[in-house]
């Protein structure tokens, strides 16, 4: 049997639907005259399972999983990982440091730009954005240990 994309997608939604049903165990469905907090989520989880099954059962129309190209995955993983690090340190390092490091990491480490141009780009963009938000838009950004 050829595994197709809709087999995978349908399967994921079926599992997700059952997961929601499992997590909704303590939510009361209530009665028709007074529906509880669990009615809507359980109804939707049931529909999700149903639609997931429908997708998987009609998967022959979708393309084989093996045909999917994953060439963009390494780039996506790098960008997502660097962004995650920046988010993790955003509040402790503040806007200027965390975003400066994010920009530098993306341009230098991921895009292989010259370190000097990457650093200049990062510093300039962070400075301009800082001024834009704090001075022009009067919207304070997160302060770091050095007060900016």
């Amino acid at each position, binding site marked *: 049997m050829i595994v197709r*994309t809709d087999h*995978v*997608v349908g399967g994921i*939604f079926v599992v*997700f639907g059952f997961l*929601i049903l499992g*997590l*909704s165990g303590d*939510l*009361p469905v209530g*009665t*028709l*005259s*007074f*529906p*509880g*907090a*669990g*009615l*809507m*989520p359980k109804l*939707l*989880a049931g*529909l*999700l399972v149903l*639609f*997931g099954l429908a*997708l998987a059962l*009609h998967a022959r129309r*979708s393309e084989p999983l093996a045909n*999917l190209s994953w*060439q*963009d995955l390494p*780039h*996506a993983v790098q*960008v*997502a990982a660097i*962004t*995650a690090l*920046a*988010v993790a340190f*955003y509040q402790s390092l503040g*806007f200027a440091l965390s*975003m400066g490091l*994010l*920009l530098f990491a*993306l*341009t230098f480490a*991921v*895009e292989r*730009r010259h370190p000097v141009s990457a650093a200049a*780009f990062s510093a300039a*963009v962070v400075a301009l*954005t800082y001024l834009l*938000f704090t001075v022009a*838009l*009067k*919207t304070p*950004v*997160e302060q770091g240990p050095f007060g900016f």
Partner: protein
Amino acid sequence: MESLLLGFSVALQPDVLWYAFLGCLVGTVVGVLPGIGPLSGISILLPATFGLDTTKSVVMLAGIYYGSQYGGSTTSILMRIPGEASSVMTCIDGYAMAQKGRAGAALCIAAVGSWIAGTFGVVMLTLIAPPLAEFALRFGPPEYAALLVLGLILLAYMSSTSLVRTLVMACVGLLLGTIGIDNMTGHFRYSFDIAELGDGIGIVPVAVGLFGLGEILSTPSATVVRDVIAPRLRELLPNREEWRQSAMPIARGSVLGFLIGLTPGSAHIISSFLSYAVERRLSKHPEEFGRGAVAGVAGPESANNAASTGAFVPMLALGLPTGPITAVLLAALMIHGVSPGPTLVNEHPDVFWGFVASMYVGNLMLLALNLPLVGIFVNVLRVPYTYLYPLVVMFCIIGVYEVSHSVVDVWIMLIMGVVGYGLRKFGLDPAPLVLGLVISPILEMSLRQSLIMSNGNWTIFFQRPIALTLLVAAAAMLGLAVLSVQRERKDWRRRLAEAEASDSA
């Protein structure tokens, strides 16, 4: 008329004009740049409007939306890269015209068509929205529940992917919308002891993640190659024959686009596809399509602009978003303490009419911006993507964080970015998910209130004429969709895609 004059008195104030101009300018840049859609642009700039009053902030954000429709045509015509999803069809004949040395004419036709369609849309919005809002005052919970069900079914019917795929994405969105404290019973739902989740998941982190970060994760910088055809200013005017060929497609695109804009879904995208198909069908020379047909630029460009204006009718009159962009605009109104819906016209006439009037002015601004300054906008495209996308990632983070100063929201945005990457990989449309998330609280509340007020009698939906009509329409739509699936009949979208594939081959 008096109300519209009030609107103009608001819209023509220098500071409101300035923010309308700023919105149009940013929107054009957002439209020009591939990879940054209007949704990301609006979401990222949402926090920047917190210091403004409601009218200025909505005028600016709406300017970004319809400005992006104008800007999207520039990259389509000059580079064969759609700056915005709704400009995909313009790539085909717009770029072909550019290769024939008629880039300026194509840009001019696109801009003039967009202006005519945009203005037509605003005139219709002026005429339709107030009476529709008055009619909607008769709506109770059963009518709202039925209307939302119809909206979801219509979304699935009009979707470019399959019915089941759209419904499954809408279900996920509706489920995400149930996260947080249940307003009626106080139960915590799926908040996993994270205090920030008690208020539910915001639209902005989900929208920015799915459409902003998700797009960047799906676009490796190595694949972005830019070859720009720069038009000269003196080549901008089309000749008499090109004007003649564009007149009727602009008129048809305007009407078609506005009507489709009223329906849920990615109306501005669907309308441009449909307009292209209609123009090719009606053309005496269909063989010219794909080789630089003027109608292939004029029709779709007019349609997507009219549709983006049409989408404001249900948003302003009913308080219902027809897509993720209007959902974020609704969120912007709510952040400023204005409840969109039937009462908006009466309770905040300055906001409503000021917004409508600003669209007349904004469309004129865009015409003035897009023609003479096209050379400057083209230069924006010369910024290497390797420097551009880190900038967008940074603005995604700041934009989401500044909404509620919550790092949890930024994590949600990042997770949604990864989800968005996965959805694109498997050909799933993220728009129904965002729409589901937005309407989930209203749908659940309307459904439960209807059952409570009828003491558990679910036939309440069939006893009220408006609700019954809406449900019958939804059932008919669903029946049609199921029938077409069963017969495996090919619809216009697939036929069009196949025709394009065979043309390019």
